């Protein structure tokens, strides 16, 4: 593979980096390098290993194998502090600017030791250095301004300035700034502004840029690495770059096998069980309309920030629609869903992404968790019958193959796959006919994944309708009857996957 245009040893070089989590190989012999004054892009699907690679570089993880060298010398990190000493800093997606402090206080957060005079912080020196670094990077923000008055992109600039300053203080030769999806929450002009700034700052630093939006990668980056399934696929320099090329390299194989039980796929019924007409929510999604048919698996695809998560939450009443109409079985119900309890009573269920904190009550046993949705139905003479709780739980545990010594085992002691089955079991028992599933197989091993797919097929056969947000395009394509593609809060298109399955590339075309 090509390593840059430079024949010399690159400034920072990562060679043969491998990293596994339990049995999952997140990275396999990945190479990566970056030079001074260069912006290098990193692309790949979810789970391709981008984040793992970046975190190894930032000292958050330790690589199992491989070496990192800077300026020709091998370097080792035990923690993020070590990486910072070498001038490497991350600007996180969740920003680390504290709202209740000023710009200069934020700039030097955690580094106050540099400004001590006999144990007292010297505001004078802090202001002076803040002014200097902001001027050098040509960032037009007054250091005494309160952080809560800053725009998103200004905060990002402050974080970048913080990293550059710290790298200088640590005598690092060239600061390396890692930007993880910095444009997700930005409007178009802000992105333009950010890119202009990055191109200016380039002369002082090296920048690693991660984004889902390929057009950004193509305009901004000098070089781009493509990762897939934890391996290097290719590396392109600016002249060879095009969105189409990156797209095809990212996706690679396009097989959708029996893994998703596609042969069990049924045709959706005729009856419309849920319909949205022109539903909007400010800053999330706009004018969303679609129909969900009986026994259908409808998938919603889109990147983070596409509005799909907010849409699903609004359907279950966790947040509210600002406007639009919602029909269940043809009846307008929008006004009457104000909480998850209302949605539940209308026959909707919701399988949350964060199963440990939102799907389960970890400190309660399996049977108490599974019967949470049916407590009322298990009442006799006003009391919940323990015996009937046991009966329905035993039946469900057998049906969906939850592996545990007993149904009185606490949920925190179950494996990820079994935990997810308990959450599924809870919704199967509820008898609710519309189920919204947010990443139903996240963090579950391959065997359990397949069981969950089979289970979803069986649910559909029992006339349950599913809205899913899958963990990968393959999953969405493999499971769904139809796929809704969302971008920037709007439905781009709805792809039919009943007869012939689309490829991942067909989806990405609309998403990026």
């Amino acid at each position, binding site marked *: 593979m090509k390593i840059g245009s430079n024949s010399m040893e690159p400034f920072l070089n990562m060679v043969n980096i491998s990293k596994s989590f339990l049995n999952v190989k997140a990275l396999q012999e990945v190479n990566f390098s970056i030079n001074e004054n260069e912006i290098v892009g990193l692309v790949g699907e979810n789970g391709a290993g981008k984040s793992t690679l970046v975190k190894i570089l930032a000292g958050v993880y330790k690589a199992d194998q491989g070496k990192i060298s800077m300026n020709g010398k091998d370097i080792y990190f035990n923690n993020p502090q070590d990486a910072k000493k070498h001038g490497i800093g991350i600007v996180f997606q969740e920003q680390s600017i504290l709202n209740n402090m000023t710009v200069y206080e934020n700039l030097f957060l955690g580094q106050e030791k540099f400004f001590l005079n006999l144990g007292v912080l010297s505001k004078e020196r802090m202001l002076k250095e803040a002014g200097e670094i902001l001027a050098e990077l040509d960032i037009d923000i007054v250091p005494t301004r309160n952080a809560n008055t800053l725009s998103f992109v200004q905060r990002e600039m402050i974080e970048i300035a913080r990293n550059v300053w710290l790298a200088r203080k640590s005598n690092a030769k060239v600061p390396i700034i890692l930007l993880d999806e910095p444009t997700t929450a930005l409007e178009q002009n802000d992105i333009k502004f950010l890119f202009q700034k990055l191109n200016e700052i380039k002369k002082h630093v090296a920048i690693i840029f991660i984004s889902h939006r390929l057009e950004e990668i193509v305009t901004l980056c000098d070089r781009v690495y493509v990762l897939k399934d934890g391996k290097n696929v290719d590396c392109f320099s600016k002249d060879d770059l095009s969105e189409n090329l990156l797209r095809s390299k990212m996706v690679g194989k396009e097989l959708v096998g029996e893994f998703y039980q596609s042969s069990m796929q049924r045709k959706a019924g005729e009856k419309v069980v849920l319909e949205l007409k022109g539903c909007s929510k400010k800053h999330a999604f706009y004018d969303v309309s679609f129909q969900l048919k009986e026994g259908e698996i409808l998938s919603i695809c889109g990147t983070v920030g596409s509005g799909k998560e907010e849409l699903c939450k609004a359907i*279950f009443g966790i947040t509210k629609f600002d406007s639009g109409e919602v029909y269940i079985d043809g009846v307008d119900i929008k006004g009457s869903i104000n909480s*998850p*309890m209302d949605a539940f009573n209308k026959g909707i269920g919701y399988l949350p992404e964060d199963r440990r904190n939102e799907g389960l*009550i970890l*400190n309660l046993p399996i049977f108490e968790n599974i019967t949470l949705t049916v407590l009322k139905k298990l*009442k006799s003479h006003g009391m*919940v019958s323990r015996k009937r709780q046991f009966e329905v739980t035993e039946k469900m545990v057998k049906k969906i193959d939850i592996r545990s010594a007993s149904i*009185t085992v*606490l949920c925190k002691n179950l494996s990820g796959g079994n935990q997810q089955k308990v959450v599924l079991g809870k919704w199967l028992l509820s008898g609710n006919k519309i189920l919204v599933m947010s990443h139903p197989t996240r963090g579950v091993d391959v065997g359990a994944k397949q069981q969950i797919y089979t289970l979803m097929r069986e649910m559909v056969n029992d006339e349950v309708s599913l809205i899913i947000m899958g963990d990968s395009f393959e999953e969405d394509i493999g499971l769904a009857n139809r796929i809704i593609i969302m971008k920037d809060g709007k439905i781009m298109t709805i792809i039919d996957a009943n007869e012939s399955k689309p490829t991942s590339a067909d989806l990405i075309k609309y998403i990026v």
Partner: protein
Amino acid sequence: MKKIQFKNSTIDFTKLLPLVAVITLFTFFSLRNSQFLGLYNIGNILDFANTYFIAGIGLTFVILIGSIDLSIGAMISLDTILFIIMINAIGFWAYPIIIVIGIALGLFNGVVLMRLKIPSFIVTLGSSGIFMSLALIFSGAGPIGLVPKQLHTLSFLTARIGPFTVNHFLGLILFIVFQIIQNKTVFGKTVYAVGNSEVTTELSGLPIMRTKLISFTISGLCTALASIVIVSIMLSAAPSTGPPYMLLIIATVVVGGTALSGGLGGVYNTLLGSLLLSMLRNGMNVIGIDIYYQQIIYGAIIIAAVSLTLDRSKIKIVK
């Protein structure tokens, strides 16, 4: 709290530890002083435990959902004053009315919490001020005694059958009723679910707000019942009656093993907690520990109990 797995059964330390403590204390004080087991002294221990247990039941539900009710002390002042005023005026009718008032006070806390969505300790600290003012206004800021001709309206509650009084049977009945409500009803199950994970409970379609409302209402109800017991023993009431109870009622609940972080413990634990504190207090008196030193023991015990039961996975930062 940790659990140890023995083959098929789990032993729950939060249930076991207070029980062991109760038995140990009982044995210790009986051996140290023969007076401890006297009929009169046993009656004393039960009287004290009973009052704190009854008020503690309501607080148990509030703590189980992960909230706190700091207005119980002020509620006791207000309830006892209104109760004695009403008994002096209308006799037996005071009973149903004070129960309705108790429910209303609890409901007030619950509604404020539900509408304004602010932390329960602030809600109840604030309402505590309101209740205390009302107590001062209704009482004229001084003690109110029972008029002698109404003595019969109260005296049956303290009639003795061996070491027991009618009050103790009230405590026993409440124990049974609330034990069933806690373990067998949808409300009780939801209380534990909310206390352990409010988000999961809400996403399972269960009524969070109604559960909180009912919990605070039960707290108001139980405080009114405890106030009846207090008046039946003291035959008087004053604005200063309630506040000293507050700390020890919280102590009763947490010493019994109910976790301040919510979702762990229950009415049974509060029963043990009330017996434990009552025996400790009585035992210290019987073997002659100076009353000035006793507060040290209570304080230390509360801190120890909370540190043992608190679920630290839920509270990442201690403020």
